[in-house]
């Protein structure tokens, strides 16, 4: 479902100040929307608005915080209480030790480390190779560059889930090199570089950087690599942030691919997602929920801290495409 959060690119660097000004304008409650403020300020409008607002807050809190409440509280129950009929809303007896036991039984420390290792390795490789490729397509424009770019874009039409079988066989025995990558981090890192969407985002951003800057750097004798490091990258922070979020989230949320290439009942190399699912097959309900809760903590905390950056990164300037 990563595609759902996928966005058209952020605007050109020159649009920076203008955009932030507009965003401030949007937050401003004076902006005219479907229903005018004047209408809401009439006595009847005000009452109706209050009712709707309360209803929305209550319903949304129930719908979205409700399940989260059970995610974190049901792990505190004892094994009996977790499958008792009828279920209790508030744990009758609180067993915080369930969390500790779930942590060690599911090997969550190890799973967490693996996932971080895979996610940031994939991020590093994507930042190196995809940025370099997008820079070449956008600024260096080599012979046949457009053909290669088009061939990469064409892969967007064929999502990788469809290709799991040949991809799995390829990773199990790399053609020409005859390497078996199954079980090694490279099985997640290298395929993640083949990400046409990120290259497309980066290229569109680089396209908006004036060629005059490139020419000026070349006249001063800067090599393409130096130009990339000293001029292009510092101007591209917003898009690098967006691409980084996409890269990490994609590895973090993926299930089928890590199940195939890092799975096999071995917590030594499984991801968090696959590992807790696999351990859930043989553990009682209260441990499953406690482990799910622990697994959810890192991303939830990360989101709550960086929510402004994440949400604006996902939507900023997305609608001009």
């Amino acid at each position, binding site marked *: 479902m990563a595609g759902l959060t996928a*966005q058209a690119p952020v605007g050109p660097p020159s649009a920076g100040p203008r955009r932030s000004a507009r965003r401030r304008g949007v937050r401003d409650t004076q902006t*005219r929307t479907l229903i005018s*403020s004047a209408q809401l300020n009439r006595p009847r409008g005000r009452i109706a608005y209050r009712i709707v607002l309360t209803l929305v807050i209550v319903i949304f809190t129930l719908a979205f915080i409700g399940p989260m409440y*059970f995610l974190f509280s049901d792990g505190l129950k004892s094994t009996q209480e977790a499958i008792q009929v009828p279920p209790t809303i508030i744990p009758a007896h609180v067993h915080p030790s369930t969390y500790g036991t779930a942590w060690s039984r599911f090997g969550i420390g190890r799973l967490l480390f693996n996932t971080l290792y895979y996610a940031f390795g994939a991020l590093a490789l994507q930042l190196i190779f995809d940025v370099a490729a997008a820079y070449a397509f956008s600024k260096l424009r080599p012979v046949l560059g457009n053909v290669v770019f088009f061939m990469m874009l064409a892969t967007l039409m064929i999502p990788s889930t469809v*290709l*799991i079988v040949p991809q799995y066989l390829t990773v199990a025995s790399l053609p020409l090199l005859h390497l078996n990558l199954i079980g090694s981090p490279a099985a997640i890192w290298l395929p993640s570089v083949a990400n046409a969407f990120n290259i497309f985002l980066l290229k569109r951003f680089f396209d908006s950087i004036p060629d005059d800057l490139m020419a000026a750097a070349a006249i001063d004798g800067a090599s393409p690599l130096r130009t990339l490091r000293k001029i292009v990258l510092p101007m591209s922070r917003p898009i690098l942030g967006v691409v980084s979020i996409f890269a990490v989230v994609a590895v973090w949320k993926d299930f089928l691919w890590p199940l195939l290439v890092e799975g096999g009942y071995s917590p030594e190399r499984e991801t968090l997602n*696959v590992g807790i*699912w696999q351990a859930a097959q043989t553990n009682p309900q209260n441990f499953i929920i406690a482990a799910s809760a622990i697994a959810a903590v890192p991303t939830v905390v990360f989101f709550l801290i960086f929510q402004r950056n994440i949400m604006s990164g996902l939507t900023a300037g997305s609608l001009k495409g």
Partner: protein
Amino acid sequence: MADTLVRLGKVKGSSDSMRSLAGGRLGRKVRRNLSAHGFLIGAVICFAFFSWYPIAREIIMSFQKTQLGVTTWAGWKNYTRIFNDPTFWQAWRNTLEFTVLALIVGYAVPFFVAILLNELRHARGYLRILVYLPVMLPPASALLLFAYFYDPAYGLFNHVLQAVHLPTSQWVQSPDTTIPTTAMISVVIAATWMNMGGATLIYLAALQNIPGELYEAAELDGAGVFSRIRHVTIPQTRLILSMLLALQVVATMQMFVEAFILTNGGSGTTVISVVNLIYQYAFALSGASNYNSASALGVVLMLVLAVFSGGYLWLSRDRD
């Protein structure tokens, strides 16, 4: 090539400066191209190994068979085999049912939620965080939680239904087969809860880009709230609506993890999806794993998705 250029230079001016100029320019061009290709090489190798080659290999494998380690051509046999498998049709029916239900629920609900949130003057930040929070959960966490809620014996959902004196349900394990099946609706509910945040935020951003004057003008013309949605909001967000529609269809057609976890690793066929079936053909049938049938099914799904996204691109280019 270089020689010809140098010779040309000789014929024209035959001065040393001309020669070095021509040679230098060509050398620079070659060097520039080489370094540009150097920047490309990492990504190109990864695409070649993990994207382009697998596409070709999937098509080739779908026409092959492997017996006792010997691979031979099989013609259309893999295709006739999967077309004769009742589970194949079941999986397609389920996938299309999921796609349609996920569109009705997961496409319309975020749009109206976004319209609602955009009208509120308070608590907007809080509500946006709420809607997006489940997107940040690892899918296994969210789905194991829903599997717990859905449990027919001790699950929370049946308890709530009992409390308000409604008949309880088997949820994902429901055996009924009339479309829409209870089992599939359960999968859609979990999937929508997990994923609607992304679409909602994109719609919200789209709504905020609608110029307020349009609403003002519509109001002056006497348009009510619903006709304002119909004639201002929807046309103004048409582009993003159609783009998300296409993305969502492609994403839901590849549904895997929801059915896989909610049915304990894909047991039974009530909610099996096409990608679940590819997985079963290739990896799950113990001892009789068949990569070739799985490839044939992969090619069928690939064609369906390619035709869909090709059609979408063609239509949207036509319109704009």
